[in-house]
């Protein structure tokens, strides 16, 4: 995944899964380590990420170049969102917003 993919409007987060998207959203306001991510996501979305799921998603996002680990003296490694990661998140959220708006409109038209 390159910066170009996200800036070209491709929704690269469509197939990475909900947990990866939630991690990116959580990292959008600053770097966090594993425990802080789990707590933040629980507060933010009411989703309790298992630690196994968390590390799998972190590895996947790092491989895609969407996040990067920060150097740390501690055992805990904080992660931060990269520039391509932020661009990919923006594209994905825009896509979600479009789908959400269409869904609401259809509900209204359907009178449900």
């Amino acid at each position: 995944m390159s910066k170009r993919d996200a800036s070209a409007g491709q929704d690269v987060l469509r197939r990475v899964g909900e947990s990866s998207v939630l991690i990116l959203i959580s990292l959008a306001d600053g770097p966090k380590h594993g425990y802080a991510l789990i707590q933040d996501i629980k507060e933010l979305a009411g989703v309790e990420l298992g630690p196994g799921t968390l590390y799998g998603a972190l590895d996947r996002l790092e491989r895609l170049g969407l996040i990067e680990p920060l150097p740390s003296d501690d055992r805990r490694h904080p992660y931060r969102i990269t520039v391509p990661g932020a661009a990919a998140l923006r594209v994905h959220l825009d896509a979600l917003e479009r789908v959400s708006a269409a869904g609401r409109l259809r509900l209204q038209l359907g009178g449900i």
Partner: protein
Amino acid sequence: MDDARATWLVETALRCYPARWRRRHGQEAGELAALLIKDGTPAASIALSYLAGAARERLTPRPGPRLTAAACALLVVACSVGASAGLLASAAPARAASASQARAHAHARCQPSSAGPVPGVAPAMSRPQLIIWEAGHGRSC
């Protein structure tokens, strides 16, 4: 569940990860589990989550030079097998058709000129190009 048993359970689950993963995340994952247990998360559910993660980690293929080379080799072999099979499949009916054409040609030489289909060459006549060939031949004879 007491602390020692919870720790043992989580450590056992963490040992299921590949060594590469344990070197990278092992200590941090142990510490994270301890914090979650302190918060009230059951050790069994943490261990289960790590076990599922370990299974995913072992089952997900990592793209690397060796894997890419193997994939390329497999692709080349598959393509050559497919091409050979295709050639064989197309050659068999053609051979059968040319044999029946030869038979039909010998038979047509002794028949009066006709543009109609020659009896006994039904398999070859099902191909359009053969119908044209037969018709032309019939006229010239």
